[in-house]
């Protein structure tokens, strides 16, 4: 493995450690007695009764709340590397098991949204290039700005009002069948579309200006052929690593969309764990999100390096 690759891998690890350590610190430094909080929240849903000191101490022992902070984090990290993310305070189940249930939902949502965003991007950009009229340019700019500016939770609400309630076409929330995915995927994809469209458009601009295209044009090839056969494949290559980099942005959208459509995914798990102050679950979810983003960034780095040796050199020097 080259030093560059090694550095990027280490960086991915450092990212996950930084995120989880920060979370861990903030969770543990929260004022008050965590054991008391846990008990009040878990056992006494009516929230009125109180808990004896003995019960609290037993619980603190069970959840390992009494050791020094760094030791506690070290223990957590060591266990996490072995695949043990601890036990959820709310459910008493291993956090890893629960994350395993939630991950497919988020993964499917993200993949479908990315795929849809890509398809729409291709359609939008080629349409703009093929039409090549001022009106098409303006329409493109309008659509791009609108997509970037439209908050997912507003778009989602409006779509629920229109497609679920008024037209009665699609379900409102949850999972269950293919129709449940339509609205969340569209909302998430439109949030991405603005960025990907601009990216591809820029890349296309560059590709069309490239020397072999210019010479092909001189040879009398049709513009349509130039665009679809020669320029587009070239433009798509740099787009892929950018998409991976967009992943962190996508995760933010996932949290909102899962909340809005009550999808049992990673984003809603994060929000639920925060709401219940379920430390192990929250920490585990943060770890998975950070790992996913770090891996996506790593993949982007590797792709870029594979595509363009200059970057590899430049960045290993930097």
């Amino acid at each position, binding site marked *: 493995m080259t030093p560059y690759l090694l550095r990027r891998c280490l960086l991915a690890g450092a990212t996950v450690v930084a995120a989880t350590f920060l979370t861990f610190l903030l969770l543990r430094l929260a004022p008050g007695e965590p054991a008391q909080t846990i008990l009040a929240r878990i056992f006494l849903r009516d929230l009125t009764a109180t808990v004896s000191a003995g019960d609290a101490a037993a619980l603190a022992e069970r959840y390992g709340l009494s050791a020094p902070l760094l030791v506690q984090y070290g223990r957590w990290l060591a266990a996490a590397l072995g695949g043990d993310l601890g*036990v959820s305070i709310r459910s*008493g189940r291993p956090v890893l098991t629960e994350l395993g249930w939630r991950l497919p939902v988020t993964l499917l949502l993200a993949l479908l949204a990315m795929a849809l965003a890509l398809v729409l991007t291709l359609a939008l950009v080629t349409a703009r290039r093929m039409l090549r009229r001022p009106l098409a340019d303006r329409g493109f700019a309008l659509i791009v700005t609108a997509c970037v500016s439209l908050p997912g939770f507003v778009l989602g609400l409006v779509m629920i009002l229109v497609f679920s309630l008024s037209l009665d076409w699609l379900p409102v929330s*949850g999972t269950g069948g293919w129709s449940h995915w339509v609205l969340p995927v569209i909302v998430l994809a439109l949030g991405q579309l603005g960025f990907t469209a601009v990216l591809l458009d820029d890349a296309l601009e560059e590709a069309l200006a490239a020397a072999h295209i210019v010479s092909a044009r001189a040879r009398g090839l049709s513009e349509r052929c130039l665009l679809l056969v020669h320029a587009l494949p070239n433009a798509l290559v740099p787009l892929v690593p950018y998409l991976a980099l967009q992943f962190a942005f996508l995760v933010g959208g996932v949290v909102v969309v899962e909340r809005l459509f009550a999808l*049992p995914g990673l984003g809603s798990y994060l929000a639920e764990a925060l709401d219940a102050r379920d430390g192990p679950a929250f920490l585990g979810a943060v770890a998975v999100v950070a790992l996913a983003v770090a891996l996506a960034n790593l993949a982007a780095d590797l792709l870029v390096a594979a595509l363009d040796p200059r970057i590899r050199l430049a960045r290993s020097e930097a």
Partner: protein
Amino acid sequence: MSARRRFAVLAACLLPLFGGVPASAETPTLRVAEMWETPTLDPLRDATLIKEKAMVTETLVTGLPDFTIAPGLALSWRREGETLWRFALRPGVRFHDGSPLTAQAVVASLEHGLSNSPSIRHHTRIASVAVAGEGEVAITTVEPFPALPAALVHAAAGIVAMSSPRAPDGTIDRPIGTGPYRVADWDPAGQRLTVTRFEDYWGEAPAIAAISFRSIPDPATRALELRKGGVDFAADVPYGDLDALAAKGFTVSRNVTARNYMLSFGSLKETPFADPRVRKALSLAIDRDEIARYVLFGMGRAGIAPFPDTMAFADPAIAVPQADPAAARVLLAGAGYAPGADGVMAREGRPLAFTLYTYAQRPGLVPMAGAIQAQLRRIGVAVTIRVAAYEAIAREMKPGDARLAALATAAYPDPDVFLRQTYHSQGTTNSWGYADARVDAALADALTAPDEAARLQAYRLVQRIVADDEPCLVIAHYGVNVAMRPGIENYRFNPIAHDYMLDPQMRLSPAPAGR
């Protein structure tokens, strides 16, 4: 692993998400929108779901909608000493796994609960449980506690077989009870629980073959799903939607339940709230009727007493006073407050201002805090609202602050627990330090009262004293709404429910065509 195989594995993981819900077409299923997350089926952690909603477990004693008690798994009971009780079990009862309900099984279940849930110890005050003979259980309380039979109505005291499958940490994963429904399918990932009719149930067989619960914690989503036909039954839908749902043919049931919207102060010592005139002025400035009408949309009832008069042990003589800002200002003036430069009432240079903490989980609280803020501003009291997690409030709140919460007033049908926790000088909820010798004496009398009538008189005395003294302000009695699609019959609301209870006698007719 080749790329293709990897893809196949990924597809295998994701494909089930596209599948439909397991066929519910052949067995008519009642689809319920549950209002809390259901991370676990452990009956000690989610007793309300397992006992009151899913009807998987049953308690020794049953609570009826009129707040009286009736035999449950115990046919009869008698008090054999100051702290000793004997319960005779109902014969012929079987758990879902076919094993009989024996005295040993009941003792094991209660002991499991007592040693794992502080809440049960706290609510029932049971010291020990023992087998007292064939089909008989002896229960000893830590002090004379006449409310024990009522306390055993508490959902967490439901009897569960110790043979129930356990989670790795020893908690119960899938409860096996004696109730009319048994756990059939539990999908923790999708937060779905399905229960089916238990054919060997000792009582009248339920009409509905299966009930499925899906967790939808967001009230607005519950209402949308109900309208859309995604669920048949939902509770606590947004108050403003009820009229529209009723107009569309949905059955809407609005009920007052055993829970109060209460404004409590950080401390009654060395704060402005120590002065009863200040508390009274705040109480008079709050327009409870307006709040019940416009904030709660009639879901709930204006109230000042610890219990609504729909409860059997409430003192019906306590009336809700009309809001009277003028009288409130007079009271404040009497307490030495005069308008300061910014219009805020102040005494000795200290303005009458506080932070009102509340939490967002129950839909009425945050809007109600806003309404109270506006109403108190009219008499020159400055309120800042802070919304925080419930547990965070106790940490952040200072003595001069206040909290608006919706507190359960009858986890089981007896007035003792709530009055003692809230108003006794040693009460566990009474963190604000209210102490009144008359209240303490009456609560002590209640435990040793010669008969139930005398006990009730003692509790009514407490209610009258605190309704007059107002150590904490009751704003309204909580309203729970239940909305059902047309065609669900025989539903009867039970107000001792924590949230809502299902009724085994409910009937389901097919959804009318065209919905």
